């Protein structure tokens, strides 16, 4: 795989943005296939065997969230969604449906490439990830198997829930997790709406793991959407 150029399917109805994505991505060693509506996009995603899908939520023929759901029926490939600023709710719906990340229009090329790389890395690494491997980002180390957390090599003691929360974030490192997803994984489906639990524990976790909790380096807040562990 390393020698092969990664394949990206862009599903977007606006030609100038499509052109910008094509130019930007192909000059950075991506193979780009385009679709200007949802139906054709799903076909392209099935035919081209892409490593990544970039999907605009506002499509002329169908809801972008539907496209995410349809793709997720047969593939776990990373999906990055593009959304307008005011459509917060559909963004969350798309993430809940299984999208990996989102970009708010307008965005720069640098931001797009960064998100793409993170998503690809996660996607390409999953099958070969060492089941006993230790997760490392910056000075934070988490051993999911032996259940320990270290900052600068010093062990940090976490409560069971704090640990569960951290391990969910580590398992999805780099990916945006919505409040609902985290709540479901940590507290179970019955607590999906109790987002204040999550916020309290997140703030406790920051107190323990971050140097300055008001300017976090690892445990990032995605405003109005959820959280993401920076990698």
């Amino acid at each position, binding site marked *: 795989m390393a020698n092969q150029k990664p394949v990206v399917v862009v599903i977007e109805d606006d030609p100038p943005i499509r052109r910008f994505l094509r130019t930007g991505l192909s000059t950075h060693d991506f193979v780009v296939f385009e679709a200007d509506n949802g139906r054709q996009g799903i076909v392209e995603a099935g035919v081209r065997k892409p490593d990544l899908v970039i999907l605009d939520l506002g499509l002329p023929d169908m809801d972008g969230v539907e496209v995410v759901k349809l793709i997720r029926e047969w593939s776990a490939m990373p999906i990055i969604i593009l959304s307008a600023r005011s459509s917060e709710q559909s963004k969350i719906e798309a993430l809940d449906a299984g999208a990996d990340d989102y970009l708010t229009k307008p965005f*720069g090329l640098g931001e797009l490439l960064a998100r793409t790389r993170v998503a690809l890395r996660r996607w390409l690494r999953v099958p070969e990830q060492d089941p006993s491997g230790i997760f490392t980002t910056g000075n934070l180390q988490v051993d999911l198997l032996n259940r320990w957390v270290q900052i600068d090599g010093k062990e940090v003691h976490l409560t069971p829930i704090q640990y569960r929360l951290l391990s969910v974030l580590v398992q999805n490192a780099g990916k945006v997790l919505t409040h609902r997803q985290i709540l479901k994984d940590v507290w179970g489906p019955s607590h999906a709406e*109790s987002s204040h639990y999550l*916020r309290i524990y997140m703030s406790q976790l*920051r107190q323990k793991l971050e140097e300055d909790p*008001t*300017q*976090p380096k690892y445990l*990032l*807040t995605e405003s*109005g959407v959820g959280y993401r562990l920076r990698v």
Partner: protein
Amino acid sequence: MNPERPDPDELLAKIEQEQAKAKRGRLKIFFGFAAGVGKTYAMLLAARERRAENIDVIVGLIETHGRKETAELLTGLDVLPRKSIEYRGTTLSEFDLDATLKRKPSIVLVDEMAHTNAPGSRHPKRWQDIDELLEAGIGVYTTLNVQHLESLNDDIGQIAGIRVWETVPDTVFEAADEVELVDLPPDELLVRLKEGKVYLPQQAEDAIRHFFRKGNLIALRELALRQTASQVDSQMLDYREGHAIREIWPVSERILVCVGPSELGERLVRAGKRFAVGLRGEWIVAYIETPELQRLPAEKRDGILRVLRLAEQLGAETVTLSANQMSEAIIDFCNDRNITKIVMGKPSRRGWKRWLLGSVVDTLISEAHNINLYLLGSPQPGTVRHESELTRYRRGSEPGLKEILSKRKKGYFWGYVWSIGVTIICLLLTSLMFGHFELANLVMVFLLGVVFIATRYGRGPSIVASVLGVAMVDYFFVDPQYSFSVSHTQYLVTLIAMMTVAMLISNLMANVKSQAKVASHRERRATVLYAMSKELTMSQSEDEIMRTAVRHIHSEFGSQNVILLPDQTGRVVHPQDRGLPQSLYGSDLSVAQWVMDHNEMAGHGTNTLAGADALYLPLSSHEKVLGVLALVPVNLRRVFLPEQQKLLDTFIRQIAQAITRVRLAEQARITQLQMETEQLRNSLLSSISHDLRTPLATIVGSSSALAENDGSLTQEDQIELSSAIYGEAQRMSNLVNNILDMARLDAGAVELNKQWHPLEEIIGTVLTGLQKRLEGREVTVNIPPGIPMLYADSVLIEQVLINLLENALRYTPEGSPLQISVEITPFAVEVFVADRGPGIPKGMETKLFEKFYRVRQEAAQSGVGLGLAICRAIVEVHGGTIQAQNRASGGAIFSFMIPVEKQPPPMEQEG
């Protein structure tokens, strides 16, 4: 002064009159002295002439009375079908007023002006229908006989011995644009009568034959000719006034007609009217209410009321004066109003009574030097009397009034019981004193009793007490005791003196009492008026005014009432507001609409649509009708008594003024708002045009340079141009976001997604987001431990912080430190963003938060001037406040407060 020059006020009045006339239809009356002189015939001939001139003439209603010649004239004219009205099983056909109004011809023919309409018609009288037609701009031809003129009614009754009930007010006759006299010598009329050419109803044939005596006809003809002549005369005068011919100028006369409870009232009024017309003077009809007259029975007082209403109908001004002495009140009034002539009835006191007690007339003769007095004799006995509307009203069941009357009777009854009781107490007292005191002292005790009764119960009981007292003194104390006979003449003198004194006391006290009553009535009216006007002044909205009005009208007039206002389309509608207990429900909107359109009262107790349950009065201010006041009078007297009517008028005027005031204020507020909106739109346009064009210029310029690159641009040039495009595009993107945010907040389209958030997370998110731009700045964050979670929309609160920080970055020198701190109070969380920049210009602390406000206009560094306005809008939707201040140690400090509404939900503790 040039005596030839007309008075400008008069000229103005003349012009106004002519303008009103131009809009009004023209009224032509074919005037005759008896039936059969050919009025209808003449009218039809005139109509045919108009028809030949191509004028739209229709026949509204013509009574041909079976005359062939008349019926022939109808051919070729449009005849309007009559309206049939069901009344007690019979079908009456009447003139169709509404059809005519709808058809709107130039001229309509309506026969017999004095006709009384069938019950249930809009107006009781045909002349009122005609008036409405004229009001609507339709010309009317009609016919009228001289005996139907209101003011001549009495005279003709005396001449012919027959009175007619169908009368037309003189004012209507005088307002006619043309009067054509249809004349026929009496001999010829009698010939026509014999030939059977004059239709006579069978049942009244004899009476009318009696009427058609030659002597009668001559007299009637003379009256008709004279009436027409005076009408011509007044037209002549109008013409003179209009053309500045002033050689002969009559001295303006003011005539006062004094009416009392006597039978003479109506005749006095009619005489006064004729007098006033003859002299071309003003006339005023006055009723002087002395304490004596206040004790009159209700029927008599109603009679006076009716006389005053008749006077108003005839065009007089009416006043009610209350005074102790009639002559005094009259003289005062005459001096005030420059009265030149007084018309009144002959004195009723005769012989020694007149000599002893005097009469008003005698006093006036001796005291009013410049005034001419005219006295009218008493009527002949046996003349038929009109039945007053009010008497008729009373005969029907009228609970309110009966109750009041019976209550009053009850009061009287107890007064007499008391007078007997007090006299008996006096007797007991004096029997103890008897033998020890002189008789004169015993008499004093009884007189004391009389005084007591007189002050409490008035004249009747006190007279009873006087008589009883005298009788008791005579029986028990005067020799011979236990007998009514008197032994000594001196005792007789004592008894007579006692009687006289007691009577005088009764009279005096009763007068004092009724004066006090009058005064208290007057004071109460003033108080009521003051109370309402005070409340009205304080009322801020139409609803409030209406509630105040309804309450006060109810308390003063005892009537359920309601104020009806028109909607946008001008249709009167029921009020939206939930009513008060005093409100009137289910008022008749069609009557209200009529009142609204005609600016005249209608409904119960009036001449228009009298079948309605309520009385409807126009609520007008400055000639403009704002709405209608509908009220159900408990008794008509309480509303139609002149003083009460005036009070109600004042009430209405006050209410109308209050409504006008509130409306003007509302209008001013809307105008102000529109102006502000306009201003805002202008500043929005100028801001947007400036702030969007500037970056666009850079983008268009730079990108065109890149697109048209022929190889001359170096690598560095290209990077510089594209980063310029990138930067400007970013700036534009921010601007557009701000504008959209503001628009969403303004439109109230923001739905708050309130959740519990730790404040440090919000601050953390903001700082992470601004990381790049904050590079090189020292940012200190000071959050005290134990801060409660905030129940808010985190995305919006983050926006507030971002805007505040961006503002700080924009307006403070690079590298200067920033500080974020949080404070808690029991009810709120306050967040501060402080800088060390140049601070805020004096007086701009609140202006900063206004839309499109920028400290330095058109400065390159500034944004569109929406950032802080957005902050304020967001904080305010959270129920908080935002403010800006200068720091004592230099720089500015912005702070916003978000109230802590409730406790966060409980958390399960981890074991």
